[in-house]
């Protein structure tokens, strides 16, 4: 009988692997294209971060209905995620926005600490998106989470020094954001390395455009980044984080509209589709908003990872 040859690649590079939290969780470490066990027999499984916000204004009701009262308290919300198999907590300190509650860096840091203490899980922490406020908030968060290695998000080309310094001060990792372009992603990692951030402490976010809103661009940028990293480009060999929760920005995700079926299930598939595209193109970690999507994605990773 004809014997089909296994088209195994000889990759010259691998993604860095780094311990998070108290060391029990490892991020990165892929040695081949996603989930191909013939390229890497003991492939590491991507990590899942469950999203928690500290200000519920404008947050989708489908998610809030599921978490109920626990959504009022970030620590309780994070514990629910732990029960559902999340590896990390993605904490967004939206309340620090001057247009929201304008909470202080100290208040925000206390929230981050409460989440870490309650769950023992590593965190990826975002501020409100205003560079100056975020820098102050991340400085406080870095100290509050000292000894509990987390990811501070995020730094960009024109504002990275303060948050990178805050991360380095307490051995946290930093999330390098770039806008849908392999060269910008690499440039960002070089910038951070030159600034003194160790490669093991860089995690990148090349911007995962959600399903129906440019997903194809991200799918290809991610694939190109992953291929370049495996082919030996050291400055792209850092773990990739993709934010699947952006699926909820798309109108068709959760809108209740005639002919489009049940919005609760549809929103789960919208986020799942975004997540699966991210996983197949090289994501080492995902940020997930929906509880039903979390179960689906967890199931897919277990199946693809060979556990099923």
């Amino acid at each position, binding site marked *: 009988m004809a014997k089909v040859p296994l088209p195994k690649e000889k990759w010259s590079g691998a993604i860095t692997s780094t311990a998070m939290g108290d060391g029990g969780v490892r991020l990165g470490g892929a040695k081949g294209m996603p989930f191909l066990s013939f390229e890497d027999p003991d492939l590491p499984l991507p990590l899942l971060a469950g999203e928690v916000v500290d200000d519920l204004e404008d947050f989708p009701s489908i998610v809030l209905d599921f978490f109920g009262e626990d959504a009022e308290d970030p620590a309780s919300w994070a514990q629910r995620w732990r029960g559902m198999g999340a590896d990390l907590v993605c904490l967004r300190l939206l309340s620090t926005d001057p247009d929201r509650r304008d909470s202080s860096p100290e208040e925000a840091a206390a929230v981050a600490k409460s989440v870490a203490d309650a769950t023992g899980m590593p965190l990826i922490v975002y501020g409100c998106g205003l560079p100056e406020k975020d820098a102050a908030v991340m400085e406080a968060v870095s100290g509050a989470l000292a000894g509990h290695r987390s990811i501070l998000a995020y730094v960009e080309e024109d504002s990275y020094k303060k948050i990178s310094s805050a991360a380095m001060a307490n051995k946290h990792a930093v999330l390098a954001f770039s806008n849908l372009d392999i060269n910008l992603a690499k440039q960002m990692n070089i910038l951070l390395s030159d600034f003194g951030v160790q490669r093991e402490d860089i995690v990148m976010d090349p911007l995962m455009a959600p399903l129906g809103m440019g997903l194809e661009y991200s799918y290809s940028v991610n694939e190109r980044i992953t291929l370049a990293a495996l082919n030996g480009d050291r400055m792209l060999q850092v773990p990739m984080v993709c934010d699947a929760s952006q699926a909820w920005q*798309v109108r*068709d995700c959760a809108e209740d509209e005639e002919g489009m079926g049940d919005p609760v299930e549809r929103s789960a598939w919208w986020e799942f589709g975004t997540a*699966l595209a991210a996983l197949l193109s090289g994501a080492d970690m995902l940020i997930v908003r929906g509880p039903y999507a979390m179960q689906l994605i967890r199931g897919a990773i277990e199946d693809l990872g060979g556990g099923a």
Partner: protein
Amino acid sequence: MPTAIEYFKFLPKTNCGECGHPTCLAFAMQLANQKASLDECPYVDEEAKRTLQESNAPPVKGVTVGAGDGSLRMGEETVLYRHERRFVNPTAYAVAIPDILPEAELRELARSYLDMSFERVGMVFDLDMFAVFNASGDAERLRAAAESLVGMCSKPLMLIGAGAEDLRPAAEAIRESRPLLYAADEDNVSPMAALAAELGLPLALRDGTLDGMAGLVEAARKEGAEDLVLDLGSDSMKHILESNTVARKVSLRRSFKGLGYPLMNLVGSGEEGMMMAMLSTMKYGSLVVFDSLEPQQALPLMTLRQNIYTDPQVPIQVKEDLYPVNGPGEDSPLLFTTNFSLTYFTVRADIEKSRIPVWLQVVDTEGLSVLTAYAANKFGHEHVAAALEASSALERTSGPVVTPGMVAKMSGKLEEALGRKVLVGPMESGSLPKFLKNLGV
């Protein structure tokens, strides 16, 4: 593709000129450039033709299923990653229709699937095929069901039955509609392939192992069946990913001949079915067959297919028009942006988030983003004014016109051209909700 020298080897080298080219070498070079056909030379023997045609075969054979309006093309893929060129023929989605249903119910079920259609960014998404399943075990019922479906729509059919004799009456009856026969396996490959060859129909082969499949392909071709679709099994996502990847990769790299055909997956239904369908869509599946599919599943799935099969070299463009967002009225602000889809989607999503009613004018910039279009002189005040004129936007609202912050420079000239107050919006679309709230309209 053979080179000119490879072609030259098989030519008579007499430079007789009967092919219309001055020399054999000149002819060979035209052949290599695909500007001439081997048939033009009367002296090339059949053996040579076959050898050359085989090395000329596309790495993944193109197969047509169905006929006329609804016919589908599968295969013909040339790359492993879409950024290398593009994925060519989008994954087709089929749903199963069991032949045990009474005629009226069968038509009703088919009708409900035909009605499941969505419009997104100016494109219509719907199901592509019906898979008529011989649940009754009665070949005549399969035929009746197939004829009934062919009578009500132009969607191609797949006929699912246990063996050639179960499929024959239906296949003969709707032969003109070019159904896909499913499936030949190691037990029935000879009669199934013979039936497909006799009727000239495409045939699906089913084997869960790559080696077994390679053997089936050989056996089917021996019977004369050439239009093949391969079902490598759908036991798990892992199996689909690895089997489809290996089959596609060895075919594209030409390290193994015999698996260069469109791939298909039967995914069942429910959560597992959807997960496998999304995977197959991204990883080389040409056809996905469901037991059933709900609208809340179909819309995200078909959106994924549209995304993945977009040509990376052609930016998706949104039609130049005036788009109402959040139900605007006659004093709502009038924003404008480019027709590059990513820009449009982002701006639109940010406006939606603000919940403030806005008129959004899309200006045709040939798919360029704001700054690029401005630099390329495709997004100047005159282009904006012309677009607003064409859509009668200024008659729809007396509200202020808002330029993207990136092109603040044009605001003065635009104000002159329009005779309407022009405000400068934020640099980043993400700041639009705040900007719009502060407008206080």
